[in-house]
């Protein structure tokens, strides 16, 4: 059996490579599930996923598998790639309100005048309880960034794994954030008339900075600080995606004009409440959208056209859509995607909006986002359709490791379900 030989060979190589990493070189076969590969292989009604050295080795139709794997029975279950939080502040906040330092919010500091230099990679707390609470619901990685800076840019975000590790960063400086809607205008002179001139000025300065000696011995009288201008260079070059929050159709058209003005920009639109109205333009300019499909109220005068069909209309026009804008409850992005499906988004696009589409936007699709040989084995066994509110993640694997499906919340549940009524509650130790 040639497959078996390949497996053996691969595993001996892997043992050598993985000694420094951890103990995870377990070969696992997840057997018999309906598999959403989110790749050209589509949905396999009954198949088996082979995991080796923390990566997807192969997806097989049926349940016949080579020896040498620990079998995980997933018959009657559904398997997907690990879901990816598209717009979060995971690792940057524990409790948002009146509870001490929140690293997701930055106040003014001399290092930056426009916010571009700010960088969350140094602020991540891998012990945050939000991480296990999120991952046991099927989310294995996330884009994480600042929630507010009261400046022009919202700094540089990171892409992180939700595994237990002191090194959660999969990609530092993974994206730059900017808001050009009402909130962006409010923080920048109270008007888009100031906001957009400042944006143009910042990029012009970054362009200048490319061929300028950027050290403290030089004169620099820009709007940006030197750190800001340096941070914007990879954005100009399209190496760092620019995530732009905008809702109003007119604002989105300005975002498209920005891309024409600085042709290297790799723009991701976020929120995009009225994006459906300019869907064709977005498709034409290859601008994907991260959105909350449940935003259907005119919350402000830049969200008047809100509709539950936003995701469906964008997808139909050929725009790549990701779903998931939250932090404590980013786990509910499955429900959000389900509601997008209820309002016209194809189910396969709903799954893609939580996986491969997010990975593509952040340039992580060579590693994660689908179940294909060679990709990191971030995957989830679900009790059923993951977009159904009554279904759940039964077992999550991150980098091929079967994770402990507990969190602070499951501990609280266990304590109060099994409380010893004869003693103070602290003595019930789940």
């Amino acid at each position, binding site marked *: 059996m040639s497959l078996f030989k390949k497996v053996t060979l691969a595993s001996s190589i892997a043992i050598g490579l993985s000694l420094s990493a951890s103990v995870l070189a377990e070969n696992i076969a997840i057997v018999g599930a309906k598999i959403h590969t989110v790749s050209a292989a589509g949905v396999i009604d009954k198949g088996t996923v082979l995991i080796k050295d923390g990566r997807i080795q192969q997806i097989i139709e049926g349940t016949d598998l080579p020896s040498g794997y620990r079998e995980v029975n997933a018959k009657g279950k559904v398997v997907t790639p690990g879901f990816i939080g598209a717009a979060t502040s995971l690792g940057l906040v524990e409790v948002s309100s009146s509870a001490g330092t929140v690293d997701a919010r930055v106040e003014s500091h001399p290092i930056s005048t426009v916010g571009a230099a700010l960088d969350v990679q140094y602020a991540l707390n891998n012990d945050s309880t939000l991480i296990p609470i999120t991952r046991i619901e099927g989310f294995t990685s996330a884009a994480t960034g600042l929630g507010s800076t009261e400046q022009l840019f919202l700094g540089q975000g990171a892409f992180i794994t939700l595994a237990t590790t002191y090194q959660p960063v999969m990609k530092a400086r993974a994206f730059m954030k900017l808001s050009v809607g009402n909130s962006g205008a409010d923080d920048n002179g109270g008007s888009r008339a100031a906001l957009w001139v400042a944006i143009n000025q910042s990029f012009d300065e970054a362009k200048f900075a490319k061929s300028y000696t950027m050290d403290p011995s030089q004169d620099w009288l820009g709007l940006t600080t030197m750190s800001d201008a340096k941070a914007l260079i990879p954005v100009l070059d399209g190496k760092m995606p620019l995530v732009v929050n905008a809702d109003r159709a007119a604002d989105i058209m300005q975002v498209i004009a920005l891309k024409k003005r600085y042709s290297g920009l790799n723009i991701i639109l976020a929120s995009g409440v009225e994006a459906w109205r300019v869907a064709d333009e977005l498709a034409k300019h290859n601008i994907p959208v991260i959105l909350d499909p449940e935003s259907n109220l*005119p919350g402000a005068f830049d969200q008047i056209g809100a509709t539950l069909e936003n995701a469906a209309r964008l997808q139909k026009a050929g725009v790549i859509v990701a779903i998931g804008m939250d932090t404590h409850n980013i786990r509910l992005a499955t429900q959000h995607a389900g509601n997008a499906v*209820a309002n016209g988004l194809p189910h396969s696009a709903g799954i893609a909006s939580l996986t491969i589409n997010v990975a593509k936007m952040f340039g992580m699709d060579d590693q994660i986002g689908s179940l294909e040989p060679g990709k990191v084995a971030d995957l989830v066994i679900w009790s059923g359709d993951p977009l159904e509110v009554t279904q759940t993640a039964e077992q999550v694997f991150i980098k091929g490791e079967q994770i402990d499906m507990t969190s602070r919340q499951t501990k609280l549940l266990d304590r109060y379900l099994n409380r010893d009524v004869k003693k103070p509650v602290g003595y019930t130790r789940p």
Partner: protein
Amino acid sequence: MLNIKLKFGLALAVSVALVAGCSNDKQEEKQKGVTGIDKNPFPSTYQKIESKPIVITNVTILDGIGGKIEAGEILLKDGVIVGVGKSVNAPSESIEIDGQGKWVTPGIIDNHSHLGVYPSPSTRSHSDGNEMTSPVTAEVWAEHSIWPQDPGFQRSLAGGVTSLQILPGSANLFGGRSVTVKNLPNRTIQDMKFPDAPYGIKMACGENPKRVYGAKGGPMTRMGNVAGYRQAWAQADEYRTKWADYTTELEAGGSPKRPTRDLNLDTLAGVLDGDIIVHMHCYRADDMGTMMDVMKEFNYKIGTFHHAVEAYKIADKLAENNVCSAMWADWWGFKMEAYDGIKENIPMVHAANACAIVHSDSDLGIQRLNQEAAKAWADGKRAGIDISQADAWQWLSANPAKSLGIFDKTGSLEAGKNADIVLWSTDPFSTYAQADKVFIDGAMVYDRSNPGSWPVSDFELGQIAEGDAK
């Protein structure tokens, strides 16, 4: 996700039982009593929409009080439910709706909404939910803030919400009176007031009052909060005695000196009289425990703890004291008092035989409360708490109706009750279920299949995407 609305808790208001819209002298006199005080100065002018009888056939029915009927029928006539069962005797002029593959439930009742007081668009000029000028403002009434043109009403109607309680926010210890409405907004707020629904009062525990008033003269601590409630109740008790003495003397033919009227104490005295229902924003188990003692000390009743994120920790005590808990399925962590939220809160409260309610406190959440119940139901089942769907629907209709004092009128599919019902496209415990048709008082007020019939608020007329699928 955290908008300003949710930073404040919810409160409900209750009202004195009144005869709506009655103008005959005797009734008016009864209402005012010898003191001449009108206890219902803003009477409901709600009018149900006329409709032919409607019969829905061949449909799965959850009656809202634990019953489930497969391939059943339900008849709505003259605004009320006439029959529910395997078959009903529909008059020949009835409109018949084939319910094949669909489900019927009672209309959803949200006992915690800020629609109208924190409407969309959420501008400062519309933020009318928190009278943050003093920690005790029982004299304010949410109905005087509600903007009936909030497009949120129509959105929640499309989610199957037929009645809701609109509360002041939770900045204050006593936030003011709430009001219960039919989800049929019209030109004035009186046009949507639920006829004969009692008033509620919104109170708030914990972080919000101390955060708002900490630097404005207090309270700045939880102990300051509790002192504030107790002082107010003590004053209300004296006030009530003063008016009782005055009334007694007056009725005996004397000419006592009329006490000065205090609108704040009027409302608080209404609670002590049992006419106004207490809706108390409270997250932590220990805060709720304290409030149940304050309740006993001053001999009033807390109808419902709202949010009650830690209700699961004291579900037995809530059952003992007969206090409902209105909860989210899974919100947590946005402040310290929400840090211990767990997904099994609702089923654990239910399992302890306490009254569990699914509430929204959100203009988005209110549009899919059935999904919130579905999540809680499924999470409970996985934790070994097996509750039938038919029983779980009590969280959405019967229990909130009880908490609002309107269960004699709506909240279940029983003959004689208001015909407030929803026809769902499929099992409403599914993400993919949608409210196909919604009926209030026997009239079809939302029909998903007929976009031309969808109600549109004044605000959205002439704006982008007017009448679009929302």
